[in-house]
């Protein structure tokens, strides 16, 4: 199981479920053909600048539905013609170079500045700079000092935000060749961790190491019975060696990302000699029994074994771990539970089951570790529907190379969260369909600030959709804090972001007098939460305006962040924290914010992962502008950059 594959599978699973949820056909009008053009040249970010040939320049945005692309010629030149009026983004990609957007402040980061064209306008002479990527190369060896081939190498970008280290896997990856050599190229300057992900074709039960005592015993036994194999009195064999397995290892040699060495890369730098050794660790198995509330074996149960929250592993470990170890937890029809090949660490064993017979989503099983992850996603997305899991049991386990036997878990009735979905000002002729609203309860403890963490939180939570009658229920939740999200019809909500648009926006989700749409709900054992009213409205608020410099000229390329003045709303995935990027004429537009008081700030650059970091937001407050939005209010707010910012 490679991380790359898992990322793809995640996308694939989302794509598929999204199709099922929104199989409506939109209008199929053709892209209008326009009269504007954009042309320019791609040059290297070196001195002197030299043209870069064979760069794929992708043009998106405007009113074109399918991004267009052009290839630079030997002089680095590109051109897009017949463009309709609009604002377009330009992104330059070339293998081994750092992908760069036009106008981005930093190579490889940020989505750049859109270029606006009017009908008939020819924008010429744009210059896109491309930086040749840096390289990390080295040799991976096994504990015996021999080259380790076929090991997946994942580079993880490291950023330190407010003293906290955040790691994000980058897309550039490598695999060791027959000599154990790897080479990750095309990297943007910055700090990286290097992680070796051994190819674990043998993921079940680990491998036992042959001991010297066993070899001696076998020699004696061979002498007694002869190779022809006549049965004779052979003494009892010595105990088998411990099971071991190769474990993901960080350069220069730790299983823990927190102790990994950081490789700092400058621009266009080649760093060779990042050599390290994969670690062989003792693995253990766990076994025990699972019973339902009635003491009988559960009819339909599935288990996840994921690194425990607060353990030093990263979310990447968690996702890979869920796919690997979690995929290997078996629960038999007799309720016997077993898993093996588990590396040392702290884990949370979460079991979900249902009283219903098989046939629900829990019955879906795809082959392999990728399948385990995909079915985790599927079950967490579909879990709240009829027949989904309603029972749970959880236990924290510390694995240290020794088997754990005799685990005993009893499934308890999970807590359910229910309510109704209301469309305010709905058109009686074409009523909105509540069954196309997605509802998810995400494990808030799992979520921290990064998108990877949020994905992990989603997988530990439960989800579902509304019913035709407007009711919704998300069931089977273990006690804990959850963030409830509601995805409007025709949109996809995930990781705290929503894409797609139907005109409907969530106005509120009232539980009694409290709006929980941005907050957390505390689910206590045995206490179902009911009576939540989620209201969607078409009376969307809007903030629009123009970003200007001190002289009143248009300023583009500076992201705008709008966030609630209420610090209690600064949670991961909050609807009251959004960002927008002004077009090249400086105009911006943000729709659908809930009514309330907000800070509005323009930044020089923005990493989407920073958005929900309270420390980051706090840092913006001083230079932010306050704005109040009433129900359905549309405000125009121009922003003027201070000379110092």
């Amino acid at each position, binding site marked *: 199981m490679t991380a790359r594959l898992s*990322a793809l599978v995640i996308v*694939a699973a989302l794509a598929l479920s999204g199709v099922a949820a929104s199989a409506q056909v939109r209008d199929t009008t*053709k892209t209008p053909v326009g009269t504007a053009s954009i042309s320019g040249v791609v040059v290297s970010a070196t001195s002197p600048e030299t043209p870069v040939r*064979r760069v794929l320049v992708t043009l*998106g945005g405007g009113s074109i539905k399918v991004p267009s692309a052009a290839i630079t010629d030997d002089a680095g030149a590109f051109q897009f013609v017949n463009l309709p009026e609009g604002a377009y983004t330009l992104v330059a990609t070339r293998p081994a170079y750092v992908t760069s957007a036009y106008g981005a402040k930093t190579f490889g980061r940020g989505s750049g500045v859109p270029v606006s064209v009017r009908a008939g306008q020819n924008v010429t002479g744009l210059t896109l700079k491309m930086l040749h990527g840096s390289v990390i190369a080295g040799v991976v060896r096994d504990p015996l000092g021999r080259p380790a081939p076929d090991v997946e190498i994942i580079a993880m970008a490291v950023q330190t935000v407010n003293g906290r280290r955040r790691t994000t896997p980058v897309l550039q990856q490598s695999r060791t060749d027959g000599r154990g050599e790897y080479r990750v190229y095309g990297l943007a300057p910055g700090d990286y961790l290097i992680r070796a992900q051994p190819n674990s074709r043998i993921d079940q039960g680990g491998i036992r190491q042959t001991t010297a005592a066993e070899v001696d015993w076998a020699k004696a036994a061979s002498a007694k019975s002869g190779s022809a194999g006549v049965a004779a009195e052979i003494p009892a064999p010595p105990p088998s060696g411990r099971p071991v397995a190769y474990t993901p290892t960080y350069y220069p040699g730790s299983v823990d990302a927190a102790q990994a060495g950081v490789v700092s890369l400058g621009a266009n730098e080649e760093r060779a000699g990042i050599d390290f050794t994969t670690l062989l660790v003792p693995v253990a198995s766990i076994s025990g029994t699972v019973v339902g509330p009635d003491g009988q074996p559960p009819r339909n149960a599935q288990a996840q074994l994921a690194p425990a929250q607060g353990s030093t592993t990263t979310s990447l470990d968690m996702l890979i771990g869920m796919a690997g170890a979690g995929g290997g937890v078996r629960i038999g029809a007799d309720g016997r539970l077993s898993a093996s090949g588990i590396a040392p660490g702290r884990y949370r064993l979460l079991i979900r089951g249902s009283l219903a017979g098989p046939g629900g989503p829990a019955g879906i099983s795809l082959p392999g570790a990728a399948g385990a992850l995909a079915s985790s996603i599927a079950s967490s997305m579909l879990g709240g529907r009829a027949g989904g899991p309603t029972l749970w049991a959880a236990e924290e386990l510390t694995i240290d190379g020794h*088997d754990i036997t005799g685990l005993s878990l009893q499934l308890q009735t999970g807590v359910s969260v229910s309510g109704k979905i209301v469309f305010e000002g709905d058109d009686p002729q074409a009523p909105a369909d509540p069954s196309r609203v997605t509802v998810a309860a995400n494990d808030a403890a799992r979520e921290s600030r990064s998108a990877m963490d949020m994905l992990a939180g989603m997988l530990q939570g439960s989800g579902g959709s509304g019913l035709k009658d407007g009711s919704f229920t998300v069931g089977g939740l273990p006690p804990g804090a959850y963030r409830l999200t509601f995805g409007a019809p025709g949109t996809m909500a995930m990781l705290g972001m929503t894409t797609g648009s139907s005109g409907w926006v969530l106005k509120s989700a009232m539980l009694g007098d409290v709006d929980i749409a941005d907050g957390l709900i505390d689910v206590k054992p045995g206490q179902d939460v009911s009576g939540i009213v989620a209201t969607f409205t078409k009376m969307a608020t809007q903030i629009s305006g123009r970003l200007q410099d001190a002289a009143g000229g248009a300023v583009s390329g500076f992201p705008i962040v709008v966030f609630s003045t209420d610090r209690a709303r600064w949670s991961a995935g909050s609807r009251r924290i959004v960002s927008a990027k002004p077009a090249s004429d400086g105009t911006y537009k943000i729709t659908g914010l809930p009514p309330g008081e907000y800070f509005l700030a323009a930044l020089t650059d923005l990493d989407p992962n920073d958005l929900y970091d309270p420390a980051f937001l706090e840092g913006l407050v001083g230079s932010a502008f306050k704005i109040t939005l009433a129900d359905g209010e549309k405000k125009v707010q121009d922003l003027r950059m201070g000379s110092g910012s």
Partner: protein
Amino acid sequence: MNTRSVVISVAAVVAACAGLVAQGAQAPPAPAAQNAPMVRTASISGRVVDADTGEAVIGAVVKLQMRTLAAAAGRGAAGGRGALPLSAAEQAAANGTLFVMGDSDGRFVFHDLPKGPAQLSVTASGYVDNGGGVLRRPPMLDDGQHLGGISLTLAKVASISGVITDEAGEPLVGITVRALSRMVPMGAPTYKLTGDARTDDRGMYRIDGLFPGKYFVLVPQTPTTVPIANLEKNSDGLGGLMSAVNPFIEALTGGAQTSMGPTGVRVNDQLWQTGAGVGGAVSSAPPPPVNGRVATYQTTFYPGATQLPQAGLITVRSGEDRVGVDWQVRPTASARVAGVLSGPDGPAANISIRLVNSPGTNDDDALPVAMTTTSGDGSFAFMGVPAGSYIAKAQQTKSASAMPAGLMAGLPPEAAELMAQMNQRTAGAGGEMNLLRAPVSVTDRDVVGLSWGLRPGAHVSGRVLFEGAATPPTSQQLQNMQVSLASVMPGSPSPFGPSTSKLTTDAQFKTGSQAPGTYFVSLTGVPAAWMLKSITVGGRDVSTSGLEIGDVDLADAVIMYTDRISSLTGLVHADASPLPNATVIVIPSDYRVGIATGAIGRRQITQAVPATGTYNIARLPPGDYLVAAVVDDAMAGDRDQNFYDALARVAKPVTITAGEKKSLDLTITVKIR
């Protein structure tokens, strides 16, 4: 990450879902005697060695598979001496498999085993299994027995490496380089894409893990063309989802630019991309026009050939690192091939069409020259077709699509093809399809205004006869039988296996429509009292040559079964002792008939000679045969006509008549050519 790789994984997930049905139908592990407590006192030990040097292979992982182990564990492992921990026992129960890692001298030991056949295999970094004797002849373990001295041999893998540059001499970065093995396993040469690698930022590639053998090395390129209209129609389907997923990916990757948009260029109303095509996820930027004409990269073989006959065949030995396999990939001027595709019911929308080389060049469906998808009105256009003679292939299935048609339209052609094939297979027996097989010749000018038609594929119908006094199969048994048509070419073009069709209660059958080609016909589910006697179509015996299916239906197939079981058995002698690892091989006397098509592979019977020296071919239909016992080494390498001719010279002729139990002793031939 690009659109294509994501789309492929979407298709893979769909395929995996479709596979669920098949998974559920898997048979449980073979049940053993239910009551007797399983004794676990057997053991086995040995050493893993390098086949070339005889030296220990350190750190190899040896896998032991025993059906009886699964059965033993399932009953709580009663009677075991060193009782396995529960979890390990459960592990074994699940799959009957144990793994050990050899020590620093390559030695390994398994103990506390039940009796039964022990299947051993071994993996080690940098080595491949060379098909050693133990693997083909699982040793039998008895209670209390220790079987020592097992030698597991491994061959060092070979590698091929080099640098790929473009026409300007700049390294081509991140492109796929593949190895195409050339083997002659069954008379006719077959080509199989085996290893692959990506070039790095220096244009360097290294294909590792190659079996010793003969290879072509190539940069596969399949320009694909997708109508923009199809993509736009889909903006709520796949395309829309891509743009919906993009921000999430961006967040996951810390805001890095991960453009998931198409990596192709727009040429009028088409999106055109070059890339590795089927199985290769990476798309590369198309080259700029050459002399005002659209240029393309085409599949290029080392040392720069575009056709297989001009390509260089590289032979690598065990452990060899072949370096300096460098070549240059150059753009070539190309033409546009366009027209309209229609089926029996009118314009054929959203159909994937591929251009493949005409047979006799590098006929290989795995390396299409170009691919496209038809628009809603059946019109199609291939961009970037180099000069040459090609065959256009397409198929249209009538089964209900597993995916909404709108979504299908947005799939890249190769994914659409995969989906279409899957639909065909999941449609079950009697799946109907319309086929396109049209020749097209391209020179230096666009070929436009083509009008291609999909026609129904040919069907094969006939009956099964059961000749003899034994009780004929019941109608229930007949309904459980399936006629199977499998392409004789190894590496069947369909990843979903042969097509099958059920028998009716009166032993009749009619297959679904088939693509033209040569097929091997077989019947499954026949009770053991019956043995295949002959397969004829139009009175002609096709059991050796294979059945050639063209455009027209074949209506008079007769599959004849007999209750007079004939067999061949005997003792194998050798000049040397102990008996070397040897194989008994039986081929029909008219073996040459099947060599050209490769169908000989389906008619030759091989059996590893057990330690007892007695071979037993329990079911051998009546006919004239040639039989030989040869050492395993003599079976290695190409099995071309020379091999079979040489085999025929050392073989004993034998005629089997209906119901005959023939005995024939053989002497091992060490060298046959």
